[in-house]
């Protein structure tokens, strides 16, 4: 058994919360630069220019890329040969969020209760997804999620007879109805298969992929390309004001499903696509 102290986990989560909010990923920056080149709308071009300038200012001044510093979603890949010592794992993660948001000057955007709506004051709790894997390493991914784009997400329990065409229609229609709300250019995470909750999680997990990397299964790689083309033909453009670039990428993740089911989930991510990983 390899021992990992909860204090170490708190430190790592704290650091990742800050880094995710200040430093836009190199893959996104690269994709935005390409978008700036190919965007035909002058307004769209100007918007992308501002988004790129913003990421430089954020990096230099340690200012959040976006004021919606999000709901902290944490993915854990916990090696089964690890023994967590010194305290409770989830409390250690929440303590990392608390410290990161306080000392990083990040916004507290979480309410204690969905209907009574009182702010928790420290941006906790995080939403934590844990997967037990082989080995003795702990991988922590911190992905703060803004709500403007989260609100444009949807899950649909489709019927197996609907097939690929209806799946494509559902995804493209979801993006179309989102318009300018999720701060395009967006990234689209699509989950297909599993159960109701598994499917939604797949869509979220899809958003962790590096922009430009295709699904290893060529069938789904083609589906991703087809979806991206259709979405960019919608003309929504940067901030929804019209243009060529609506999405920077589309990622599809799948899981086996029931003979009677075809769940499809779409999780929309804005250009402030924040996720940082560390392995302990």
């Amino acid at each position, binding site marked *: 058994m390899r021992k990992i102290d909860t204090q170490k986990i708190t430190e790592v989560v704290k650091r990742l919360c800050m880094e995710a909010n200040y430093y836009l990923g190199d893959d996104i920056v690269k994709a935005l630069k390409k978008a700036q080149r190919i965007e*035909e709308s002058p*307004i769209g071009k100007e918007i992308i220019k501002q988004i790129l300038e913003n990421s430089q200012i954020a990096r230099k001044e340690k200012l*959040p890329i976006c004021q*919606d510093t999000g709901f902290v979603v944490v993915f854990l890949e916990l090696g089964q040969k690890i023994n967590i010592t010194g305290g409770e794992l989830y409390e250690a993660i929440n303590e990392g969020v608390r410290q990161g948001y306080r000392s990083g*000057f990040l916004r507290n955007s979480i309410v204690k209760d969905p209907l009574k709506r009182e702010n928790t004051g420290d941006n906790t709790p995080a939403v934590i997804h844990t997967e037990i894997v082989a080995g003795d390493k702990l991988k922590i991914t911190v992905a703060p999620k803004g709500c403007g784009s989260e609100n444009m997400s949807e899950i649909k329990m489709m019927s197996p007879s609907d097939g690929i065409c209806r799946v494509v229609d559902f995804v493209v229609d979801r993006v179309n109805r989102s318009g*300018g709300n999720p701060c395009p250019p967006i990234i689209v995470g699509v989950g297909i298969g599993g159960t109701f909750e598994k499917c939604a999680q797949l869509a979220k997990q899809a958003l962790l992929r590096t922009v430009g990397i295709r699904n290893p299964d060529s069938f789904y790689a083609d589906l991703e390309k087809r979806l991206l083309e259709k979405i960019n033909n919608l*003309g929504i453009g940067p*901030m*929804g004001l*019209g243009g060529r670039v609506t999405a920077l990428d589309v990622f599809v993740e799948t899981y086996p499903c029931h003979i009677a089911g075809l769940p499809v989930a779409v999780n929309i991510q804005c250009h402030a696509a924040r996720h940082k990983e560390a392995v302990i």
Partner: protein
Amino acid sequence: MIKLTTPVTNNDIEKLKIGDNVLLSGLIYTSRDAAHKRLKGLLDKGEELPIDIRGQMIYYVGPTPARPGKIIGSAGPTTSYRIDPYAPPLLAKGLKGMIGKGPRGEEVIEALKRYKAVYFVAVGGAGALIAKCIKKASIVAYPDLGPEAIRCLEVKNLPLIVANDCYGQDLFKEGVKRYRK
């Protein structure tokens, strides 16, 4: 680029058309969902608002906390449709502009026409860039709302795009039509 300074007049508003790039300077107010709900509550009861909105602009923003010695943290726009139910009564009271992101509903577009006002889009997710245009910030109402408190901001050359003008035009519809394949 059109330079505009608050407070604005009907004459200023009439000159603005969808797609115009505007650099806004002067004092503006911030307000989001929770503060709007309170403002609407006051109007419903026929009471005075804590801020004078005549000729003014409201920016839909909930900034991040300022670092010590800084004026404000990141301060980009939030999604506007959530404010739609609250906007027309404020426009009726003389509000001349709103700044946010994302499209507005028909009732707001109608109210912009009726009361001569505009809706600007600021670039969502460009909170650090926008913070650079904010020269002063102070809380003027509802401090208990934290990031949602009403602030008065002094801005210099805040980059905005006219998305809905006082002629009923909508850049979200027109822009998308132009680029849809």
